[in-house]
């Protein structure tokens, strides 16, 4: 038996809806929409061609920022447009204490304890802690990190131009941004299944949502990076121990074989672990469509992220416990080591680089380094061998991190 409130809700809904005698759609309308859906499905099947053609994603383009109504500037990802970057080789020691200081970061940073977003145009208060935040439509999209009684884990949230949360958010496996800022992608869980959304931050086209088979919240779908203009590689944690790799960007996800666990992606390629043996884990790079055997493998480095054009890929320690003691830049096509940045760690001192880092085009990396009990520092590491400390002060011991990891 209904309570009085339930009866009133029943009556209110019927009073509201029953007078509506509306049949606005024709079969032609529906067929047109069905064709659009079919085209999207076909587009995913055609990723093979798109991925090959899209190898060279242009860098140096400014990301599309939030609408002009905002007083908060867009968190554009600035990529240095130098046409022929100088690349050195060998090993470069990274010592925050002796490094030159650059006052501004070339990419937006998050001050964890603020929490604030630090850009070249100023510092802006955030409603809570975020692990990633980037311009979307007339506001922002961010991955909020919660540790509360009724909400824990990562949530994708959409914020207004004033950086206030607009929507309650959904559980997410993460948010990635195409290197030129022209598309973003995130995953969200709707209570039954995961879906991946690829969206134009400028709002020029409708977002495309790819729905995965019904699964639990724990079987996260984690976006890794764009493999073509409109498709993104993801890792689906089915059965929480049997990760699979997919490409999403149409109605149906397309599975990519060849990796035990995908970790990073770039135009046309996906990097991840290929083999777990008694001596450790090996990693490789596979084609984003065909998958299969990797073109090259390494057992010395965990791979990812890729540089903006996919020319280089970062290698970090496979057994890093307190951060990776070094960052090795590898040629993504061959696996050949190009340059190594080595943290200046005194004997019996733990520390190293965080693996959450951002490429600045193909020329530099912004990474966080921790050495012993000293405050963590943000470093700008150039492939020309330059090492600079980013002189932005953090408000607390948690320090700074990049706002949009590559």
């Amino acid at each position: 038996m209904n309570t009085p409130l339930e009866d009133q809700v029943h009556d209110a809904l019927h009073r509201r809806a029953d007078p509506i005698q509306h049949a606005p759609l024709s079969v032609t309308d529906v067929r047109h929409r069905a064709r659009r859906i079919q085209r999207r499905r076909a587009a995913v099947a055609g990723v093979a061609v798109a991925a090959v053609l899209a190898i060279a994603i242009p860098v140096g383009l400014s990301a599309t920022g939030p609408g002009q109504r905002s007083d908060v500037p867009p968190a554009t990802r600035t990529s240095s447009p130098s046409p022929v970057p100088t690349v050195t080789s060998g090993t470069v020691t990274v010592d925050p204490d002796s490094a030159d200081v650059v006052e501004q970061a070339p990419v937006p940073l998050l001050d964890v304890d603020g929490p604030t977003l630090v850009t070249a145009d100023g510092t802006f208060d955030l409603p809570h802690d975020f692990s990633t935040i980037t311009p979307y439509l007339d506001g922002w999209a961010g991955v909020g990190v919660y540790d509360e009684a009724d909400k824990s884990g990562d949530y994708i949230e959409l914020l207004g131009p004033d950086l206030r949360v607009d929507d309650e958010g959904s559980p997410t496996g993460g948010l990635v941004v195409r290197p030129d800022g022209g598309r973003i992608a995130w995953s969200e869980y709707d209570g039954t299944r995961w879906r991946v959304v690829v969206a134009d931050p400028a709002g020029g086209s409708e977002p495309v949502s790819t729905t995965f088979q019904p699964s639990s919240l724990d079987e996260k779908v984690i976006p890794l990076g764009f493999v073509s203009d409109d498709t993104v590689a993801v890792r689906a944690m089915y059965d929480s121990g049997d990760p699979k790799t997919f490409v999403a960007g149409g109605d149906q996800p397309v599975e990519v074989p060849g990796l035990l666990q995908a970790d990073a992606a770039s135009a046309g390629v996906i990097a991840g672990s290929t083999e777990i043996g008694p001596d450790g884990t090996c990693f490789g790079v596979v084609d984003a469509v065909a998958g299969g055997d990797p073109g090259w493998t390494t057992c010395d480095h965990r791979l990812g992220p890729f540089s903006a054009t996919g020319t280089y890929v970062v290698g970090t320690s496979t057994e890093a416990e307190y951060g990776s003691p070094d960052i090795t830049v590898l040629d993504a096509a061959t696996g050949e080591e190009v340059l190594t940045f080595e943290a200046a760690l005194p004997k019996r001192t733990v520390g190293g680089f965080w693996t959450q880092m951002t490429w600045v085009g193909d020329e530099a990396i912004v990474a966080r380094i921790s050495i012993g009990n000293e405050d963590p520092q943000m470093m700008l590491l150039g492939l020309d061998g330059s090492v600079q400390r980013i002189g932005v002060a953090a408000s607390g011991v948690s320090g700074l991190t990049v706002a949009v990891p590559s």
Partner: protein
Amino acid sequence: MTATLVDMGPHGRHADKDADFSAYMAARQPALYRTAYLLAGDHASAEDLLQNAFAKLYLSWDKIRDHGALDGYVRRVMVNENNSLWRRAWKRREHSTDTMPETGAVDTYDDGMGGALWSYVQTLPPKQRSVIVLRYYEQLSEAEIADVLGISVGTVKSQASRALAGLRARAPRSLNPHESGDAS
């Protein structure tokens, strides 16, 4: 004597599909549109939700053997789409200047309570709102709602309970449980 079984071929089957689908749409569109409207809250979004659901139904028409389940399929697609964060954000932006007349807004028999409750229902989180619409408008059982939403019956109960508590908290004093006998 000639055979009476005629193979209509792919073209004939296509024509049959369109005729069947057209008949289904003609019969069910007004009712399903009302559900879409209650889920989405405005006409533009309702039309979009329903068109998307009909399009997916059209593409799956040949695979759905139980035609008694067609309404359930359409409802499931609409609810899932409406619960999606990206769609809400997109529609909020796309229809920010939507001025279509809300034909359901005029209720000459309403004492004001219906309109107030409707406005509170619109403020509920999408998943709670889906449960409320399916329970009190479509009058589905908790098990049927669980099937549509792909969640457990227990989750349906908790979502409904939270939604009613939210409505009670926001509604006028006349809906106060102590005044309306709804304290249980």
